């Protein structure tokens, strides 16, 4: 039997910054509290992130762990419609690609979320 879970939005767990490298955007995700970092490591898999962005990116997702900064760094390939000066996008340099990440809602076992003081998400999924 699965343990009951609670919905938590990444917005309440992390802060982010992103930038560009050619047609790739990077997205750094930093846990707001060190004790939340292991949950991010567990939940923010490349598959999960890839599914979250969906059609917004055309390539693969790479992930790197920076436990020293309680951070994950994602490389989103094909995120910028050609990138740099070729891109016609408003966000040609991927500056706010990282805020899209914060919309993600993850499901955390209730006991764990309570123990770690994670705020529940009240919005629509």
């Amino acid at each position: 039997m699965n343990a009951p879970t609670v919905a938590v939005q990444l917005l309440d767990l992390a802060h982010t910054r992103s930038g560009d490298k050619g047609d790739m955007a990077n997205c750094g995700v930093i846990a707001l509290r060190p004790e939340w970092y292991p949950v991010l490591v567990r939940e923010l898999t490349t598959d999960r992130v890839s599914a979250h962005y969906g059609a917004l990116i055309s390539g693969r997702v790479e992930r790197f762990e920076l436990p020293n900064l309680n951070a994950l760094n994602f490389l989103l390939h094909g995120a910028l419609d050609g990138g740099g000066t070729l891109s016609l996008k408003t966000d040609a340099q991927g500056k706010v690609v990282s805020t899209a990440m914060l919309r993600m809602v993850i499901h955390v076992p209730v006991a764990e979320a309570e123990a770690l003081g994670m705020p529940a998400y009240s919005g629509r999924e």
Partner: protein
Amino acid sequence: MTRTIRVASGQGFWGDSLDAPRQQVDGGPIDYLMLDYLAEVTMSILQKQKERDPAMGYARDFIGAIESVLPGIVERGVKVIANAGGVNPVACAHALLAAIARAGHAGKVKIGVVTGDDLLPRLDELLAAGHAMKNMDTGAPLSTVRSRVLSANAYIGSTPIVQALQQGAQIVVTGRSTDTALTMAPLRHEFGWGADAWNQLAAGIVAGHILECGAQSSGGNCLHDWRSIPDLANVGYPIAEVQSDGTFVITKHPNTGGRVSVPSVSEQLVYEMGDPHSYITPDVVADFTSIRVAADGENRVRVHGITGGPATPFLKVSIAYRAGFKAVGSLVYSWPDAMEKAEHANRILRERLHRLGLRFDQVLSEFVGANATHGHLAGDGRAAPEVQFRIGVRGEDRASVERFTREIAPLVLNGPPSVTGFAGGRPKVEEVIAYWPALIDKRVVTTQVEVLS
């Protein structure tokens, strides 16, 4: 007592605050001011300017910046390192000397000029010698776009800047130095770090990375608790207080706004990050997973523990080439049903472009206010009270792009209702200057240093 060198950031890109350099020099004690003016696209713009006028091709804002700091740097011996030379560092240095003379300081300030990064005059010779300069992303050889190349510059490291400082330069002007070299060079010069002192060199790179985007590490563009960041109108730009072992503190001048905190510095550390285990520069490969950051008092963050390893045998080359034309236009649709109207306008415009037989490599429609930046994650935009319909085209055929720019305004009278926001007139056709990243054997790039006064 351990000696500390203070390197202050006064410019994060060409277009950054005109006042920041002076505020850094006059706002408190610093030893060096670093000014970063170059982005990838900047070099090609400067190359075009130089083609029109051989005395141009550098960041002209830099001359004004030096004029604004001149009394302070002459009085207190502050040194300045800037990559403002663009594709013409020598012309930049001469313009600087003239400005210094006009200000009555002739002969008092030695200027170091670093050249050798510009590979454009040598491009065919290098290709003939077997340096293919393949595109790092696609693997294509440079010969496929050779005839359209506008500029080609190697990203050079800190060594020639150190040489200029050793020769007594107070202001060092470079072309395409790496952004981080502008911070690294003073530290190598002051502390005598050897070319294989990998951990110290890596620390210099990390300090450079934190400083190179100006206030982006001291409270600007900081998402963490952004509402509480005080007085961004008077934001203090970051300063690195570095010790000889490579340990440093990021801070800012007293009586300035913004915030230096572990979150503000951490956000800058992950900015534009690739593989954190190997942050590759001409001087060293730094390991960003080794960085330790800790609060060290108000607006002070201590950074330490950084490790690095040997540099690679290559330098990155930034090549700009002509890649067709583009134009972007927009209209604003209002409530009621703003999104539906904007989407309808998009369908109509695309059908007209199709009927005209125009040729584009790419057409992109966005609905600003609804989903331009977050796509489907932002929902369907039906509740948006107003929506900017923004459409861009790109292609090799200039005539098609020109015709596109004439097809937007008619929609105001012959498309969906409740439309406005066309006061700017027809969109402009822009030439697209694309960027070709490549690597080259660092042995073929030789730099020169000259000191003028």
